[in-house]
């Protein structure tokens, strides 16, 4: 291993090679523009987490200097981090976007959905999401899912057809060839679109650093009252934690993912800048979901099963 990349590529027209971040950015922009060109009513799923923030940033670049031709959809579990809701409303106002909200709490209040014994509302998101898609007649729904997150997601296409029940059938996926994405769908069906398919967690963080994208503060180390459950640090809240035998303590933590408070864990961290976060992630021996998502620990096929039902 004595040759460096630069040496190896000298004399082969290397000035035209894109850096890996430029290549990923260009591909994602291409995907956004394909959807804008081929669909009537697309929407970006926006949770206020880093992946959806990245998607919005890429969409803004793809159509500059014009406005983003998509609205946003937030599936609100009712167990949100306040910082994240604040961030959501701030970006919606700043970019003059339209925000749709599908509320899990509404479904519980109406008795359509029942609170689970473990308090997590992640699986409860599927019905409000899919009904909202039908009601608003969204025909393309952008998700921030990445194939590196989970082994079922590694099988996901960039354009993923969903039937009228929003179901994913991994054995009946369309082959995806070159960059010729097929967005054809019947009325009632829609296409889930994953512009970040080929990004890894580290790519996302490097790009956020390069572009200096603002994030909710919970991604950076801060003192927080947390308690331990199943090996994860959870934030106390109205969703039902801590239980009597769980002790709250103050710790220096940050979040690697943002989701429902009841099942998204924080990690011990001193990283207060983007560079420190990147260094920490590059050295981590745990995957993002393995470290911080309780719902994916339920079974070997937890994500596949949720995705089949229409989860993002």
């Amino acid at each position, binding site marked *: *291993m004595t040759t460096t*990349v630069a040496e*190896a*590529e000298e004399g082969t*027209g290397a*000035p035209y*090679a*894109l*850096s*890996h971040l430029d*290549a*990923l*950015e*260009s*591909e994602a*922009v291409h995907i956004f*523009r394909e959807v*804008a*060109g081929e669909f009537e009513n697309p929407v970006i799923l926006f949770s206020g987490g880093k992946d959806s923030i990245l998607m919005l940033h890429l969409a803004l*670049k*793809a*159509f*500059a*200097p*014009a*406005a983003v031709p998509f609205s946003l959809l937030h599936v609100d579990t009712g167990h949100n981090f306040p910082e994240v809701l604040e961030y959501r409303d701030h970006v919606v106002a700043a970019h003059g976007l339209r925000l749709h909200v599908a509320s899990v709490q509404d479904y519980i209040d109406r008795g359509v959905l029942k609170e689970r014994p473990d308090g997590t509302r992640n699986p409860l998101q599927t019905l409000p999401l899919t009904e909202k898609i039908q009601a608003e007649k969204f025909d393309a729904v952008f998700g921030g899912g990445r*194939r590196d997150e*989970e*082994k079922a*997601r*590694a*099988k996901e296409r960039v354009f993923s057809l969903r039937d009228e029940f929003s179901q994913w059938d*991994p*054995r009946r996926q369309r*082959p*995806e*060839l*070159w*960059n*010729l994405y*097929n967005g*054809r*769908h*019947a009325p009632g069906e829609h296409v889930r679109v994953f512009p970040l398919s*080929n990004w*890894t967690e*580290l*790519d996302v963080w*490097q790009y956020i*650093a*390069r572009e200096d994208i603002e994030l909710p503060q919970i991604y950076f180390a801060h003192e927080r009252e947390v308690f331990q459950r199943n090996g994860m640090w959870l934030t106390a809240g109205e969703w039902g934690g801590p239980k009597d035998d769980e002790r709250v303590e103050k710790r220096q933590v940050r979040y690697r993912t943002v989701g429902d408070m009841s099942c998204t864990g924080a990690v011990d961290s001193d990283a207060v800048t983007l*560079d420190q976060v*990147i*260094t920490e992630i*590059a*050295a981590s021996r*745990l*995957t993002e979901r393995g470290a911080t998502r309780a719902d994916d620990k339920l079974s*070997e096929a937890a994500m*596949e099963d949720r995705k089949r039902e229409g989860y993002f």
Partner: protein
Amino acid sequence: MSTITTEELSATTLLRFATAGSVDDGKSTLVGRLLHDSKSVLTDQLEAVERASASRGQEAPDLALLTDGLRAEREQGITIDVAYRYFATPRRRFILADTPGHVQYTRNMVTGASTAELTVILVDARNGVVEQTRRHAAIAALLRVPHVVLAVNKMDLVAYEESVFAAIAEEFTAYATELGVPEVTAIPISALAGDNVVEPSAKMDWYGGPTVLEHLETVPVSHDLAHCHARLPVQYVIRPQTAEHPDYRGYAGQIAAGTFRVGDPVTILPSGRTTTISAIDLLGEPVDVAWTTQSVTVLLTDDVDVSRGDLIVPTKDAPATTQDVEATVCHVADAPLTVGHRVLLKHGTRTVKAIVKDIPSRLTLDDLSLHPHPGQLVANDIGRVKIRTAEPLPVDSYADSRRTGSFILIDPSDGTTLTAGMVGESFATPEPVKDAADDDGWDF
């Protein structure tokens, strides 16, 4: 990984590659070894594999469980569909299209190879070049994958003999070269023992070449753009119509090939109107020059009619437009493709109505023999087709441009992706299709 600086991480390039090989050749082991030895498997993933392996009663962790993501795949112990894997070294980021090797999954190999810059073809050192190897080489040649690696696996089972490796490498290279594969790198490995995958082998000091990973890290990913025909398929017209940008009218797209400069005289196809590039925006920033595969927005000096589906090309280097497309195709749908079939053809950003006029031949991948006028192509078949399109298309030969020489056929009734197409002659030294089956075979 903890010693890498942020700058180093950002400066790396991306290599997309695919693997080909049947289950018994040790493909899963190679992929597992690459991921594991490059420290791309994290503790919780490995623990999950160990747990799952133990619950199945297996003594050692089954690394194939890392890559088989679907319930059905784990149940059957086979890979059904393409999966994409991601790993990185300080030098480069990798996207691996992990494709199943069985003949009935040819369409998945085509899917994986369509975006790959490199294909790793595995053979078992004990068996040498077999039918399946020839099939994989033929698909790599058809899809014009720029770099082919022959990984001669299970060298541990042939006593790490140089002569065994040399004979296989020579036979394969001769065959691949005949198919028109531009570059073959043969590497003797043992995926199980870890020889020459990530670490150089102590048992094969007669081999002086790179390990698999070293080769993946150093193979060039950029092309000599001076010889490429510049092509920009228009995806979307950007018109802000705001007080700040009242007259902005930009044509957005990802450059499919070559370079574009401000001041270039260009022609809009299929209309044939000519104008000049007045400005190029690279995602909001003005630039003087842009190249493949950048996503850009081009502004033109004249107010000509340009919309999604059009192709912007240099006036001095415009392709001819045609309504009669001849191509080599791989049929990817379960329902057959027949003569007279009415389809949609997506080429670049343009989708047009089309009809299958003729299917002159079908290729048998086993022996690369040619069957004239098969009448139809079924799933996984590769053949030649003649297609008439409702509108003229500016197509390039796939040999010149993988992006503007490729297309897909779509079933207009239910949207199914039917067929992957590559325009023009296939392989390096094409000969005309003959009506009678003959032995010199694969010259379709």
